[in-house]
């Protein structure tokens, strides 16, 4: 690129306060006008610190030691004020509620315009322009407190956009959003990048979004820049990324894995389902087998119960539970509505048996969290009946239901309240009347198992570790039912896998697990059964592979099926019925290998 870099970091290192540990360690980086840069990496890699350096919050807001030079539009950030940096770089931070300075959308946008002294005859144009660009013109007079997470995120972007920055820096803008809203945010950013020429730097954990939208991806690890290139270049390093604890898009894993197995030449990975489908169709085209017409091979049309087990030998075989145990969770035609709004659930019936791991998916507002609250007793059904571990939740106080049902909430900080990790983990046991010494002994064992520092304060730990503390205090209770509300949000890939492996072990030991989750890849990896919700109702309930291969249900719930499910469906239609129902990368790879080498 010929134009000069708009952001230039020269060997930048930063450590917070008096700490010696470097959050950033010798970063050199140039960002050019018009780029759409995605930044990813494990927790604690220094991603948020990098964003703070780019926006001038380091060194102007956070105390610490900064080495090297950070230049924004040619000016050293140490030599100009934060306000002046903000004229070039607009920043949207992680905590969206804290980002807001007003209570009404219009005032939120006016704030910056007024402060920067935009001519009053231009204000209206800029204000309505920014709202229209982000697609929220109708929200102008709304109270911010009444907006959804995705809408707030858009307001935050619009408020920055009205100031016409040349660079937009966003720190995990989709962390709290469902897949559909996450994609909308990225589409908006992409449009700003393309049409308005705004340079975008976005920190993001969702690798599928990075690979679809970004022109360049940076991977950070331990405060350093580990990889830097186009998505295709970066995701070709599949095994290296995995070692760091960074996920790759599943379709990239398919092509990388095929290359590792020697089925294809090593090269740039596939980044979309279409590319992967084309690659595999091409590979298998020479075999001479003519694919059957689509209608005959489409898995959803076939008898549903049989597709996953018979049509494909590669679908995961559900664990054999010998004599079917009696359900531990039973909802019969349950209805609940929040006062003053139409939200809630209606006519929900659901049974879960010990040892089952059920994923609940759907958009924000579909009634998933309401469902979990009905199960742990925080909400009582207005109609119908909820029985958990033999208890009717209407008859027993919540604090007693807790002996049978343990909940892992999305935000671990709301669960923690003790001074040390050990006390925290033992607390739940003590509340259930377990003897103090016995509780501490069991807590110590649990803390050790998760590798947690028993004597430290939970609040001094990283976000991922705090989630582990919360998880340990759930596991130690040995409950009959575990509810997980977005157990993986805010965690990096490695932490996510640790959490989910633990959950799977609990299920194997006979615990019924119900997991609300936005991450379809996690759901398809771990849940055998999936419940799809929309508008407070259950749309579908069945084996994961089967549910994910029903496009009608996925569309009605605004859920995108996991990439592997999309790929196997596409291949089943175009290439061979044997692909139907495969839900794992290894299943696809093994089948392709088998077919290519008869």
């Amino acid at each position, binding site marked *: 690129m010929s134009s000069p870099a708009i952001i230039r970091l020269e060997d930048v290192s930063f450590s917070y306060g008096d700490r010696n540990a470097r959050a950033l360690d010798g970063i050199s980086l140039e960002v050019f006008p018009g780029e759409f840069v995605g930044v990813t990496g494990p927790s604690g890699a220094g991603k948020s610190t990098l964003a703070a350096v780019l926006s001038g919050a380091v060194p102007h807001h956070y105390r610490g030691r900064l080495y090297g030079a950070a230049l924004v539009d040619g000016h050293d950030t140490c030599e100009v004020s*934060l306000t002046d940096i903000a004229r070039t770089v607009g920043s949207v931070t992680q905590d969206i509620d*804290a980002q807001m300075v007003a209570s009404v959308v219009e005032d939120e946008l006016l704030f910056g315009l007024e402060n920067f002294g935009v001519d009053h005859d231009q204000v209206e144009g800029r204000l309505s322009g920014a709202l229209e660009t982000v697609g929220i013109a109708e929200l102008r007079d709304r109270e911010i407190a009444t907006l959804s997470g995705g809408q707030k995120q858009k307001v935050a972007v619009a408020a920055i956009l009205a100031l016409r920055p040349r660079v937009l820096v966003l720190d995990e803008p989709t962390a709290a959003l469902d897949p559909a809203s996450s994609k909308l945010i990225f589409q908006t950013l992409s449009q700003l990048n393309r049409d308005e020429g705004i340079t975008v730097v976005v920190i993001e954990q969702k690798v599928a979004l990075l690979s679809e939208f970004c022109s360049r991806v940076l991977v950070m690890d331990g405060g350093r820049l580990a990889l830097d290139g186009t998505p295709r270049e970066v995701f070709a390093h599949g095994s290296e990324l995995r070692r760091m604890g960074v996920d790759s898009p599943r379709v990239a894993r398919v092509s990388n894995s095929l290359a590792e197995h020697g089925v294809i030449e090593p090269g740039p990975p596939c980044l979309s389902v279409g590319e992967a489908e084309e690659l595999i169709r091409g590979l298998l085209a020479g075999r001479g087998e003519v694919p059957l017409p689509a209608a005959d091979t489409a898995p959803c049309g076939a008898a549903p119960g049989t597709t996953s087990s018979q049509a494909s030998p590669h679908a995961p075989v559900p664990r054999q539970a010998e004599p079917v145990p009696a359900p531990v969770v039973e909802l019969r035609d349950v209805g609940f509505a929040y006062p003053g709004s139409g939200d809630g659930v209606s006519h929900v019936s659901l049974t879960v048996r010990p040892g089952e791991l059920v994923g609940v998916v759907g958009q924000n507002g579909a009634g998933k969290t309401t469902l979990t609250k009905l199960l742990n007793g925080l909400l009582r059904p207005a109609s119908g009946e909820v029985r958990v571990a033999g208890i009717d939740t209407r008859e027993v106080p919540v*604090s007693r239901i807790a002996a049978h049902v343990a909940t892992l909430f999305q935000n671990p900080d709301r669960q923690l309240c003790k001074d040390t990790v050990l006390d925290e983990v033992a607390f739940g046991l003590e509340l259930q009347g377990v003897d103090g010494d016995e509780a501490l002994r069991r807590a110590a064992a649990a803390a050790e198992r998760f590798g947690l520092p028993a004597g430290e304060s939970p609040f001094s730990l990283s976000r991922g570790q705090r989630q582990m503390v919360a998880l340990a205090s759930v596991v130690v209770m040995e409950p009959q039912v575990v509810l997980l509300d977005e157990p993986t949000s805010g965690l990096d890939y490695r932490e996510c896998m640790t959490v989910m492996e633990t959950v799977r072990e609990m299920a194997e030991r006979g615990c019924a697990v119900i997991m609300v989750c936005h991450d379809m890849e996690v759901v398809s990896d771990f849940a055998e059964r999936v419940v799809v919700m929309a508008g407070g109702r259950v749309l579908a309930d069945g084996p994961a592979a089967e549910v994910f291969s029903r496009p009608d249900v996925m569309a009605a719930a605004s859920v995108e099926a996991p990439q592997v499910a999309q790929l196997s469906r596409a291949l089943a239609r175009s290439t061979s019925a044997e692909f139907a129902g495969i839900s794992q990368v290894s299943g696809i790879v093994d089948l392709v290998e088998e077919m290519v080498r008869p």
Partner: protein
Amino acid sequence: MTSVIDYVPGNTLLHRLNPVTKLAVAAALIVATLLADTYPLLVGLIVLTLALGAYAGALRRLASLLKVLVPLAVIMLALQTAVVRTGAPVAAWVTTDGLVTGSKACLRLLGVAMPLILMLSVTKMGDLANACVEVLHVPYRYAFTFTTALRFVPVFSQEMTAIMEAQTARGVEYDTRNPFRKLRLMLPLCVPLLVSSVGKTDATALAAEQRGFYLRTRESCYKRYPLVARDWCALAACAALVAVGVAL
């Protein structure tokens, strides 16, 4: 999520008054209530506040406030009768003087608490802050601090509810019927709440600075808040109200 200070939308004269005038109306009602010493005036002021509330469509808001205030007022009445023992005895320890001072204290409590809530509920926080800066020359950073604090009240109460739900689901007895036990259980939660509020406030300060907070002057505001004829009329009425309070 509704709290007593949420904005009640509307387009009545009360809504259209300058925010500063509305503050003056509330202040006049409160001062008159404090000065008033006769039943007709005390009751009249409360009726006036309720009538204004009904006119502005905020009567339901005042009613929910009264639900909290009336029991408080009754407790106050009981305490006053116990303290003031002069005058002719009525029944048990209660005397005529006790009843008179007690009932007036009750009416004052109601009369003082309602006007401000009424005025806040018909004013947008942003407008109040901007008008105070423009008309009363209040430094913007104080106005901003004030509105931000008010804005955070529901945010933190939501956070507190979420924390209590999470703790109840772990087995802490927040669902106990004993209010003292509940209070004792709540105290340890202040620390996590404080930690998260300090973090939030710091983030808000950074966000405000990054959008030019320090460049802001009294002239920055896009909307203007001049005092117009209806405001002067209202202010005159306020002065009259205080005068009545002094007289009666």
